[in-house]
């Protein structure tokens, strides 16, 4: 059983300019009027409210598509759902293994070989060294990189690099899958293979949360959708209903 429960979650980002971020300035500034100054400084702290009062409950089988214009808070909400940002206001409870595929090349070392990178990323995903090595044949076959896998990945083309990153990121099946746009990689031939692999991953996840600007992606993978606007939930319901609202908002 996987589940995610958000209870009145708000997320604020403090904005520190060079002045408030520096401890030195605080101390020098506080010198004259001691504590009063610091209190004043903290009250004057500028914050950006990225998410506002979000209550959401996801359980097994839920496939939620997040839509909204740029800056609506989609990525921030995905990060909250992944457990990256722990909300300062409200509570969140996440049950189940989470895989967030927002940056599939994360943690790759350009000077290490393809094989080394497979093992490294595998360990990152929580595998033992042996388990990670066990994934090698599958990745070899999927990426079709052949001999290149024994070369440092800085010698790869962008497409080759993406293929490898994609293959590694998709080699374990999470219970909760978080995606910022549908991942795809490579040329036409590879695209089909990648699409199939990604579809399998998405279908086998117990909970999917994906943000996308593409109506096809949302309609293709999701069974419910949420429209965000300025960090607030504008509407939450069926895909058809939300897409209608979203188009109305965009118009």
């Amino acid at each position, binding site marked *: 059983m996987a589940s995610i429960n958000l209870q009145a979650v708000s997320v604020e980002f403090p904005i520190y300019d060079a002045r408030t*971020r520096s401890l030195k300035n605080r101390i020098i500034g506080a010198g004259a009027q001691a504590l009063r100054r610091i209190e004043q400084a903290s009250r004057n702290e500028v914050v950006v409210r990225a998410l506002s009062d979000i209550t959401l409950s996801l359980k097994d089988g839920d496939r939620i598509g997040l839509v909204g214009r740029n800056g609506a808070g989609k990525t921030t909400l995905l*990060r909250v759902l*992944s457990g990256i*940002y*722990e909300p*300062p206001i409200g509570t969140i409870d996440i049950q189940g293994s989470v895989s967030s595929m927002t940056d599939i090349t994360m*943690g790759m070392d350009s000077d290490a070989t393809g094989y080394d990178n497979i093992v490294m990323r595998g*360990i*990152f995903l929580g595998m033992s060294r042996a388990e990670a090595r066990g994934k090698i044949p599958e990745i070899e076959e999927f990426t079709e990189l052949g001999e290149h896998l024994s070369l440092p990945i800085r010698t790869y083309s962008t497409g080759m690099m993406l293929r490898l990153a994609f293959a590694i990121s998709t080699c374990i099946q999470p219970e909760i899958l978080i995606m910022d746009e549908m991942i795809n990689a490579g040329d036409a031939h590879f695209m089909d293979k990648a699409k199939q692999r990604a579809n399998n991953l998405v279908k086998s996840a117990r909970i999917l949360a994906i943000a996308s600007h593409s109506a096809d992606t949302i309609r293709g993978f999701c069974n419910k959708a949420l429209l965000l606007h300025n960090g607030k939930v504008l509407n939450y319901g069926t895909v058809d209903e939300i897409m209608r609202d979203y188009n109305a908002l965009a118009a």
Partner: protein
Amino acid sequence: MQATALTDSGPTLPPGWRRHIHLAMQDVGESLKLWRLWMLMATNDIAQRYRRSLIGPFWLTLSTGIMILALGLVYSYLFKIPVHEYLPYLAAGQVVWTLMSSILLEAGSAFVAAEGYLKQVRIPKLAFILQLVTRNLIILLHNMVIYIIVWLIYQPPLGWQTLLFIPGLILILVAGTAAATMLSVICARFRDMPQIVISLLQVVYFLTPVMWRSNQLNEGNHAIIKYNPFLVFLDIARGPLLGEMPSAETWVIAVGLTVLTCIPAFFFFARFRARITYWL
């Protein structure tokens, strides 16, 4: 289970704190479970630095070695201490000091450097501190080669008490982890802090008997010798390397200082852990 025990035993704690403490214990537990990851990241840090160089990480050994040799020859002459006495003293002290000071120096960038990970996946935060401490332990092991070479040449009297180096080292690593945790949280929030730490550590280096000996200053009775926490940790690791037995008092103070660092560090970490990602 431990988490419940602790939170239940503190009914006076406000609910916010219970949650902070519970999540911090969870972070510590998950971090320890990820040992493969931080060990790998630590070895990679060193491998990356010396990739495509002929002698690789032994540049660490060589550059420290050259410095110790140069300082050793000059200062043994200036201080009029025979080289066969001074060089082992300096080698042992410098190697241990490098460990302590780099753990604190590098705490300045621990979370800032991990931004790419911390903002992309959910990952326990203490893992990055453990990575930093492990990296510096590996560097210490490389630097120990210098101590061994110096020992082979001058053969200072060693005995079973030399083995006490290991518990001394463990205390340094534990206290170092706690201090680095606190410092790296502060440094993520206040970006001037790393520069302040650099300057302060430089001063501490000159005030701590690494290059000079305690008895050169007022027969070891000066305040900067009696109340220097760095010297306590230096003594419990350097003493054994020179065949000296650290006094029971030194041990008690070292253990006490370690506990005194760990407790506030834990509460500090518990309080600010969740904010780190927002500060990056």
